[in-house]
């Protein structure tokens, strides 16, 4: 059986030989044209003059387009239709595309784009969270507030009240392959688009809209991406639309690829946040009531900010049962890049808020942070799970506890999971040893932290939780499979091919993996929210079940047995004492004039969600995990490194343990990078000053923890997902929070414990040093 096997990525051999093609590697016809945008240089302003004569005169330039060349400016937004392809009248951030150059070469287009002369009347720019709050600059009429119980009263009645605040920086995706698109005009005005996109259906929709054509005139193909991480959910729209428009106007193929600096300056990033908290807590660490104020910087257009901010609210509890809670969320509009989807989609920011609370509470009460976390965990639901001998859960109550948004937590496993990790990582003993070590080392200080993750799986926009697939069996027994998911390195194609192979009882090599194609499977959702294999795996299984059912019925009749008694295993089909090669059966079924092609469809059951009231069951299930990270800091410079990481993560019954481990390790490294070295800096004029890897520090091979133990929790999903597996794309990202709080622990070791020194994220060497000085009282 192909399920649960650690098979390598689908295109492994192509990758290691350099044959795997990304958009920029696709051979183009000789008459291909290349595009580049001319960008805004001010954060907010009215365009008072636009002189593009030098651009037009530059060598190799065929056409230059700006607002005046469009009767209706095409829109590139995934939501609110507030993102014109090119600025109309006003610019809203530094880096906004103002005009489009079409030239004979990539270099010619880029060089010419620098020659544009734009005059602006500058308007006051709103850049920061504080400025936006002061100006009331926001999306939606006011803040969104969800609550359960009466937080203010609960806090007032608690033994202690703790207040604080944390700044949380954004994050550049830095998908190693930058944004790229290629449009190929076809007969009759049709368009084929190759795009590095997580959302081919949206590219199709946006391109069709821009060309004033029906969606059936546009076909979008995505074979693979060189990384996406959410940054290719909506940010590829502008390139695809620009290429399609230029291709339609010139009748020639058009390609566009952002150079790295342009990519970083133009495209949106992870939302940065400030989270203020007020917490009522008992002496044993139990939270009575919590109030969160989440301030979220969304940039100039709405993009996906509302669901991102929602998901931050939906993870404000992480793994903890908070009886009374109030969460207020402000979605602030600023003159910066439009913040967008990024792995975790707001969840990490919301989760960091409550994890900071845990850290703060433990420090104030002088308790072990792991213990404070444990006493606040949700209880394991009665009867939902087989009793777990490792569980340290207190006696079962009859009630299932529910989240701040009133979803019962029925699959909680963190009691057992965290206990096992504490044991395998030697957490308690190491904590004691570190304290001793710190006492005798004045310059270097070590720190350790254990943090859990509970992450909700499903798109919060309920209708997105659907998927389609198309499967053909050819008469030689080979299988062709297509589905709506896209491959960006997460191993989706391999996993889904394993599902198809298992469906027919054949080897995975029999299944051809093909590019995602809007002409084969229509109306797909973005490959996002970790949902890729959950949704597409089920859709492919449904299609395989249909075809296999037809094959079984045919053989059953011929052998006069029941269809259930026909078995597909190891490339053969067994029926009533006889057995055939799978290929033989395919041929017989074909000759009997029975269809060997089917579509499959899946929609996630059980979910309902009332966004306005913050109530319902937005998530089909939760994925869990926990990590212990140990760090060392140099108190003279603030420099630091991760010494050791231990992770125990829940993938349900893993479809492919090798790929899942890769997601866990990679997610952790990226999550730790977000909270430690990856710092985005804008200057007072709204210019992003960290627009290259030289100034924006992405974790390198040498930053990976020297000791890195990753284990999978051997469980099964209690919900009926594809072979009882769990989604794994996003949840491990938040394991990186343990690295941040380990740094906080090391900083605390520099003081006498009399006051809590809060560290903001990312905890760069500079911030760590400043915190050390504050905790020592020598600021």
């Amino acid at each position, binding site marked *: 059986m192909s399920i649960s096997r650690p098979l390598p990525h689908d295109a492994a051999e192509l990758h290691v030989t350099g044959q795997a093609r990304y958009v920029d590697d696709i051979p183009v016809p000789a008459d291909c044209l290349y595009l580049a945008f001319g960008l805004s240089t001010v954060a907010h302003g009215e365009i008072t003059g636009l002189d593009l004569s030098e651009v037009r005169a530059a060598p190799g330039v065929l056409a230059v387009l700006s607002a005046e060349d469009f009767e209706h400016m095409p829109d590139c937004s995934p939501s609110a239709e507030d993102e014109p392809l090119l600025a109309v009248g006003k610019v809203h951030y530094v880096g906004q595309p103002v005009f489009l150059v079409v030239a004979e070469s990539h270099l010619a287009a880029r060089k010419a784009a620098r020659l544009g002369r734009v005059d602006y009347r500058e308007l006051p720019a709103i850049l920061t969270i504080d400025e936006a709050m002061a100006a009331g600059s926001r999306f939606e009429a006011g803040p969104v507030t969800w609550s359960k119980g009466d937080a203010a009263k609960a806090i007032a009645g608690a033994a202690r009240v703790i207040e604080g605040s944390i700044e949380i920086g954004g994050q550049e995706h830095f998908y*190693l*392959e930058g944004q790229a698109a290629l449009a190929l005009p076809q007969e009759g005005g049709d368009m084929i688009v190759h795009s590095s996109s997580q959302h081919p259906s949206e590219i199709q929709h946006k391109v069709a809209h821009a060309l004033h054509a029906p969606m059936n005139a546009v076909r979008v193909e995505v074979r693979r*991406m*060189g990384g996406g991480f959410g940054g290719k959910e909506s940010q590829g729209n502008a390139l695809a639309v620009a290429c399609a428009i230029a291709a339609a106007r010139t009748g020639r193929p058009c390609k566009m690829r952002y150079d790295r600096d342009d990519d970083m300056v133009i495209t949106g990033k992870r939302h940065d946040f400030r989270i203020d908290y007020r917490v009522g807590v008992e002496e044993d660490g139990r939270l009575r009531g919590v109030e969160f104020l989440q301030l979220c910087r969304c940039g100039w257009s709405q993009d996906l900010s509302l669901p991102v901010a929602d998901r931050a609210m939906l993870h404000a509890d992480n793994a903890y049962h908070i009886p009374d809670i109030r969460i207020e969320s402000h979605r602030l509009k600023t003159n910066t890049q439009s913040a967008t989807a990024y792995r975790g989609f707001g969840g990490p920011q919301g989760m960091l808020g409550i994890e900071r609370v845990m850290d703060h509470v433990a420090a104030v009460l002088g308790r072990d942070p792991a213990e404070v976390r444990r006493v606040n965990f949700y209880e394991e639901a009665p009867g939902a799970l087989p009793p777990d001998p490792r569980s340290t859960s207190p006696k079962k109550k009859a009630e299932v506890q529910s989240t701040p948004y009133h979803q019962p937590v029925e699959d909680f496993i963190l009691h057992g999971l965290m206990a096992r990790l504490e044991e395998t990582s030697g957490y308690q003993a190491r904590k004691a040893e570190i304290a001793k070590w710190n006492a005798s080392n004045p310059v270097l200080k070590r720190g350790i932290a254990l943090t859990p993750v509970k992450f909700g799986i499903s798109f919060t926009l309920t209708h997105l939780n659907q998927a389609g697939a198309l499967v053909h069996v050819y008469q030689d027994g080979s299988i062709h499979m297509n589905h709506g998911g896209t491959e960006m*390195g997460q191993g989706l194609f391999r996993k889904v091919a394993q599902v198809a192979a298992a469906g027919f009882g054949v080897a995975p090599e029999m299944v051809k993996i093909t590019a995602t194609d809007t002409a084969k499977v229509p109306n797909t959702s973005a490959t996002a929210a970790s949902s890729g294999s959950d949704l597409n795996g089920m859709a492919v299984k449904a299609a395989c079940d249909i075809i296999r059912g037809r094959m079984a019925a045919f053989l059953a009749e011929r052998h006069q047995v029941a269809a259930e008694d026909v078995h597909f295993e190891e490339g053969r089909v067994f029926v009533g004492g006889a057995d055939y090669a799978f290929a033989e059966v395919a041929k017989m079924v074909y000759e009997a004039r029975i269809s060997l092609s089917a579509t499959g469809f899946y929609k996630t059951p059980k979910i309902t969600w009332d966004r306005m009231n913050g109530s319902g069951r937005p998530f089909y299930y939760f994925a869990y995990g926990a990590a212990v990270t140990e760090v060392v800091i140099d108190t003279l410079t603030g420099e630091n490194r991760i010494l050791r990481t231990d992770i125990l993560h829940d993938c349900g019954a893993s479809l492919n343990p090798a790929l899942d481990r890769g997601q866990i390790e990679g997610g952790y490294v990226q999550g730790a990078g977000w909270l430690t070295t990856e710092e985005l800096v804008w200057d007072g004029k709204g210019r992003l000053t960290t627009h290259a890897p030289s100034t924006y520090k992405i974790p390198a*091979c040498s930053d990976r923890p020297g000791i890195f133990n990753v284990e999978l929790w051997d469980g099964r999903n209690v919900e009926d997902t594809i072979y009882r597996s769990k989604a794994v794309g996003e949840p491990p990202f938040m394991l990186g929070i343990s690295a941040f709080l380990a740094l906080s622990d090391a900083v605390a070791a520099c003081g006498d414990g009399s006051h809590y020194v809060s560290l903001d994220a990312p905890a760069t060497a500079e911030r760590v040093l400043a915190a050390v000085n504050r905790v020592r009282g020598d600021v």
Partner: protein
Amino acid sequence: MTYVLNLTINGAAQAIALDDPRVTLLDLLRERLHLTGAKKGCDRGQCGACTVLVDGRRINSCLTLAVSLDGVEITTIEGLAEGETLHPVQQAFIEHDGFQCGFCTPGQIMSAVGLIGEGQAGTDPERIREGMSGNICRCGAYHGIVEAVLDAQATFQDGVKRKTA
């Protein structure tokens, strides 16, 4: 004015006419010779996706002007395997799952081949991590990458031992 550049690329000697002295080796490979294995990740020497070997030494091809390379021997990812037989580093990357999206992979592999050739890293994971730190993997597949390099290194040492035995 046109320059003629004599290069040996993946074993084949070529005379290449260049009309622009500012063309980088990466653009020459990708755009003119259609060898798209080497990738453009940053185009400014900071990510390693464009790594190739020049006379056996690893370089960032995006930072190297093609005209400066007259007479050298260049090996790209396309020239590493011998026919159907993968190079041991390529094989090791598959076995140890040394990638996710694969975009950094050609650069990682060329860098690993260069590192092993330099003979500096040996079997010390710490030094391999240092030696590979010029190649960013945003997917964070570093665990598999280091394992793959260690494994390939061992294969080479075995090979050398067997040859000298």
